[in-house]
């Protein structure tokens, strides 16, 4: 029986010629990731090991991105703990203020994630790197600690759902709309424990940034990973960003899938997820009159250059509505710089938005845009759970950068063409 793309990568990393869904394996890791929230717990766990060494100082990435620049004394203590650990073990890829970015935008940009890799990260959105044809998945801090010490992790080989993408999306439809549509269709546990394998001729119509967004939110359908085949666009991205060699895996033609869906990208409309689950989707034309208080454009889901470009296109020569706070967060220093050179930051600031240094801040209700009781935010982030961005009586609406920017202008959830 054939293997899926994910199964082939896992088989190779486990040193096996074949694996089957449900099989428990131990796989070699190419990268172990942690951030300023999850790494301190992992570092504490590391103390329990009989060995004090990390498996490879180049294959660990520690990114200070959730609560930095530090929001309070406790978060500063956490970053200090990670900084000292990175220094002690001479960790090559330690990214602190000045070099940091939001981890899942930063690591591909730094060339640390390439096709064929097996990557674990103590952050649920680690599944992002599937856009480049890597197997990557979120884990907790103990798995991260074990990964840092041994360079290995145990996995239950997942079965897969195949998403056949066909057609070309219209002007205002982005990767975010594709993945929100899929989550709306299969639910927040629709891919529980499974791989989401994206295939089809429609993929050529999706930019790398669109693909990162789609793979990023696989976890919001419960998926173990999301993965794309490696095409010319993905190869040119890796060649531009990474000196590492990569390996391209393809699903066998007789690979088995639990379910198969075909999605015509040309039929999709801009989509919004209503509170309090990413599966509560409506197309923007069905959203009705939803007034908002705040707009967030950023995060590991939608803080990349394409996202800022489309938001700027919508906001150019327009004003953010009176009383609306519009917060734009470029995901990395490189994206920030490029957005500045392209004049995007000027457009944001002239429109009445603010532009922040990279941070996960508001997405998880950390800081930089916390909501009060009864307030509503339209956000390009990935979760709209109860209390995620602040007060338990606040509301989050998930959308693309184009919809978020259009809504900033009108003060209510709006389609970009309005």
């Amino acid at each position: 029986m054939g293997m899926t793309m994910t199964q082939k990568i896992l088989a190779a990393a486990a040193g096996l010629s074949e694996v089957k869904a449900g099989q428990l394996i131990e796989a070699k890791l190419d990268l172990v990731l942690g951030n300023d929230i999850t790494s301190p717990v992992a570092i504490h766990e590391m103390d329990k090991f009989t060995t004090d060494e990390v498996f490879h100082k180049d294959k660990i990435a520690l990114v200070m991105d959730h609560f930095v620049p530090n929001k309070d004394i406790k978060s500063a203590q956490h970053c200090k703990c990670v900084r000292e650990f990175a220094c002690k073990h001479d960790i090559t890829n330690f990214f602190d203020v000045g070099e940091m970015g939001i981890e899942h935008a930063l690591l591909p940009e730094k060339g640390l994630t390439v096709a064929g890799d097996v990557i674990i990260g103590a952050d649920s959105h680690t599944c992002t790197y599937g856009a480049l044809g890597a197997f990557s998945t979120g884990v907790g801090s103990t798995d991260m600690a074990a990964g840092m010490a041994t360079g290995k992790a145990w996995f239950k080989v997942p079965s897969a759902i195949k998403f056949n993408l066909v057609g070309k999306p219209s002007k205002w439809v982005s990767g975010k709309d594709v993945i929100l549509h899929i989550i709306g269709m299969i639910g927040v546990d629709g891919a529980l424990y499974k791989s989401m394998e994206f295939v089809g001729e429609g993929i050529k119509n999706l930019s790398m940034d669109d693909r990162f967004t789609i793979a990023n939110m696989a976890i919001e359908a419960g998926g173990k990973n999301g993965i794309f085949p490696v095409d010319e666009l993905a190869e040119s991205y890796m060649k531009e960003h990474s000196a590492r060699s990569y390996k391209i895996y393809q699903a066998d033609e007789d690979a088995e899938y639990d379910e198969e869906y075909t999605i015509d990208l040309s039929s999709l409309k801009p989509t919004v997820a209503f509170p309090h689950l990413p599966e509560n989707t409506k197309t923007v034309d069905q959203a009705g009159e939803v007034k908002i208080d705040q707009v967030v454009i950023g995060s590991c889901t939608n803080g990349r250059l394409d996202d800022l470009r489309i938001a700027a296109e919508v906001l150019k020569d327009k004003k953010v509505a009176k009383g609306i706070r519009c917060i734009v967060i470029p995901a990395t220093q490189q994206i920030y710089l490029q957005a500045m050179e392209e004049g995007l930051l000027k457009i944001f600031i002239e429109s009445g938005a603010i532009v922040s240094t990279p941070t996960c801040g508001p997405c998880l209700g950390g800081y930089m845009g916390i909501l009060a009781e009864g307030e509503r935010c339209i956000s390009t982030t990935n979760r709209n759970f109860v209390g995620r961005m602040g007060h338990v009586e606040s509301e989050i609406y998930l959308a693309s950068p184009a919809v978020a920017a259009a809504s900033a202008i009108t003060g209510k959830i709006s389609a970009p063409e309005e």
Partner: protein
Amino acid sequence: MKASGTVFKYGDNVDTDVIIPARYLNSSDPKELATHCMEDIDKEFVNQVKPGDLIVADKNFGCGSSREHAPIAIKAAGVSCVIAETFARIFYRNAINIGLPIIECPEAAKGIAQGDEVEVDFDSGVITNKTKGTKFQGQAFPEFMQKIIKSEGLINYINQKQ
């Protein structure tokens, strides 16, 4: 090994943001985390929970963030076992890795209500609802995961292997 206590019952998709809100993630101290456990979904939980009590939930318990702080907070609050129809996969891993017993059992999730007295036998996977006098067969862990749980977590298991 057995667990026994009173049940706190929740519905579908209990996410890690309500189990332990991110505003408290500037701490990694289990005791401190436990004082905010379930705060955004059930303010009374921390006042009422006693050592040994159980959480029972419906589908996709622990969805969302990978924060290990979520099972840590539940364990430190004194909860002896979480039973659910299904678990989100990162939470599932994390619970095993830190030694918080969890059991998938759709029938038990349906047949147990808030406040019921429940006993779980981890060796047999049998869940007994003492209040209603009913029994359910929970899914047993694969041998590999049993070893991790018996070693009281992944790190000890790896240490023992080496």
